[in-house]
């Protein structure tokens, strides 16, 4: 049994628990999402009360896979703003995601989450939110950056052997 299987089972358990909660009482408090500036945001150690118990969000939403990732920098631009944020967005719905409306040629959609994306300060915040909503999430790890130290003087370093580059700058 792999971890994925284990996790789906874990989710089933939480769903059972949730229905139990719904039947029994309203005394169970949803954990308050802590929005501190530090990176060490507490990961919920106990089962979270998912949002749709109270919010009345449609149950289909619960089965939507989301991805948690840090959007890559646009290679067209050098600015690095908003790069630290973590984003949640939804995988497209097969079949109902988007189609071309025959009336005007615009894109129509049966997917009310297709335009939704949510930004978070940290990965933990995003995971916490996804768990609270009861979404299936996949965390895409950010690639490690490896930029060596660069030096203007390297342009003029003497190379002992045959020259391998003719700079045309």
């Amino acid at each position, binding site marked *: 049994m792999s971890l994925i299987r*284990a996790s789906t089972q874990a989710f089933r358990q939480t769903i059972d628990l949730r229905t139990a909660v719904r039947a029994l009482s309203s005394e169970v408090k949803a954990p308050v999402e802590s929005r501190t500036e530090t990176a060490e945001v507490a990961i919920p150690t106990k089962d979270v009360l998912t949002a749709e118990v109270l919010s009345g969000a449609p149950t289909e939403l619960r089965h939507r896979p989301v991805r948690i990732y840090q959007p890559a920098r646009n290679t067209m631009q050098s600015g690095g703003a908003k790069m630290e944020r973590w984003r949640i967005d939804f995988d497209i719905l097969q079949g109902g995601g988007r189609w071309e409306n025959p009336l005007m040629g615009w894109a129509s959609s049966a997917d009310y989450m297709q335009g939704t994306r949510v930004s978070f300060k940290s990965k933990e915040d995003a995971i916490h939110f996804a768990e609270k909503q009861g979404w299936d999430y996949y*965390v895409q790890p950010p690639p490690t950056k490896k930029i060596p*130290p660069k030096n203007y003087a390297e342009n003029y370093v003497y190379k002992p052997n045959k020259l391998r580059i003719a700079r045309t700058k």
Partner: protein
Amino acid sequence: MLRLVSTASRPASSGRLSRVVCSNCVSTGRRTFASSSALRADITLTVDGKEVTVPQGSALIQACEAAGSPVPRFCYHDRLAIAGNCRMCLVEVERSPKPVASCAMPAMPGAKVFTNTPLVHEAREGVMEFLLANHPLDCPICDQGGECDLQDQSMRYGSDRSRFHEITGKRAVEDKDLGPLVKTSMNRCIQCTRCVRFANEVAGVEELGTTGRGNDLQIGMYVEKTMDSELSGNIVDLCPVGALTSKPYAFHARPWELKNTESIDVLDAVGSNIRVDSRGVQVMRIQPRTNDDVNEEWISDKTRYAYDGLKFQRLTTPLVKQGDRFVSASWHDAFTAIVSGLASSGAKGDEIQAIAGHLADTESLVALKDFTNRLGSDNTALDQAGGYAPPVAGVDVRSNYLFNSTIPGVEQADVILLVGTNPRHEAAVLNSRIRKSWLHTGLEVGLIGERADTTYGYDYLGQDAKALADFVAGKGEFAKKFQAAKKPLIIVGSAISEHADGPAVYNALAKFVEKNKSRLVTPEWNGFSVLQRVASRAAAYEIGFVPTKKAAAVKPKFIYLLNADEVDPKSIPKDAFVVYQGHHGDLGASLADVCLPAAAYTEKSTTWVNTEGRTQLGRAAVPPPGASREDWKIVRALSEVVGSPLPYDDVVTLRDRMWEISPTLVRYDTTEPTSVDVALTGLKTLAAHTAGAKVTGVPFKKPVANFYQTDPISRASVTMAQTTRAFVNGERYGFSESEKSSQAAFA
């Protein structure tokens, strides 16, 4: 639905998922003693009152970045040499009489740097004013609008009015013609020379350069010539203004209209990380995504520009052949036709053959192999020359068919031997790494095979297996260099296993590697690497999608083509019932009795394994057109109609099955090195398996004749057809021929 599975071996099933996810999110990759960075002294300086420690030899701009103070720049780029000619990155350094260009200034210990003082602002405003003096005000019609560095930075440092009132107007520069991919508008050029440095250092096009000085400086190819490089599209990204823009994308969309989806490229086996930009149901463009372990920041032109092939020649509805015509059918009818075809063909056991093509994703490969096996067949073949027989290198040991040195590892090699491969066309991005290493270290490259225009110099050893025998025997200058190397690397092309001399070559190499295992196979370094050239191959080997010897001898009566578009039509028996599953009406579909429309790589969230064995997860950007469906779902549905349903109903359980086959298939973004013992065992079995193979002496051929059209997507692409005409056939196609037109060509 999918989660990162721990890189540790089987985790306790009771562990909470979130913890596993968090504790393993840092991508470890391969890290050995040798690949840790060289020991360097660190220096400490103060940037904007914040102490920061950077390695000695860093540029000041890197120290500012590290301190979290962004510095505006046009000419500086992380992956190019430093030019220092835009002067936008001026900062104030204490006790320095003038502002200094932070890209060209080394970071000094104890320096006090200020990036946000009135002096700095004024200096940058001055620079910006000069840049804008000659920059046309055509942002509304400029394709760079919305993602333009000059636009961005002028919001902060630009003035709202001009002090320059030249009678002659702004500088006018003639547009250059760089071919069908890159559009130029040289009036907008601010002469940052990023494109020139990229062409020089990375792409190996040494004709792109500058002429003139000062106000008359121009970028161009010196003579009227197109920029013939398989990486040329990257200069569009590098250009901080709209001087170089994408010709196929010109005036098609604005960046703020696009939905970005981070995905994986499948048009070669590198698995470049890409970002698919889509609007509505259309893919509008494909951009690279930075990943230092795979593609750095570059992608090849095929990756970038073949996307328009996704719009043409698509299969949108199931097709059933009636007589000599295809008639569109419902999914139900198509499946019924397959079931009756399977029954009427009388195929039993190994007579049922499945052939996996170049663009098949891992999920569908697993589903199809399970399905075929359930029908009692082991005849799972691959769509390549000799793909109907068990592969030479075998699939039992991963290191026999993977790029073991890893792609970043190529830069550590000091001698590289290429056997029967031209990485420039088989893995263009990898080739740029070899060039980088060749330029900056003393790397020596040797080539056995057909001569090719790589972008680096090489010692040519010969064209056939005899040249390899000479090399193994230690004859020749290059063999001596190879013997003296500390980290030698042998890159074996995927075409070798398709060649008549394949077994002999593998035999010679396996013995050679085993003999020199102290340098070629060590815990830190595995110098025997196989370069696959198609996206699905490594995954197919990984799950054992290869026929048994017994099955390979059987003449098939029922053939299932999964994205197989390179098959030899003669190899398909006349009376066989053929099913084609794929997204384009290419060769495979024309051979089929039933066509099942599937999703292309931008339309499904599936797993891809690159040539290093790195598993990466793609993501659907747009919905598949018409009635087409995800590949594995089609196989699953068919299995149910045939009467032996596969035991997975959703992608989670399917990935569970993949985990059972090979745990690496669900450990994303990492490469797992093969241990020395296992690798050596693999080589021993390889040598034993191929012992006594005869050498025919047929020269090795380059497997990729036309880089721009290698798969159904790029063959359906108009852009790629134009590129083929311009660069492969050498026609003067795509030129504006402005000298013949009656009016001057504006804009």
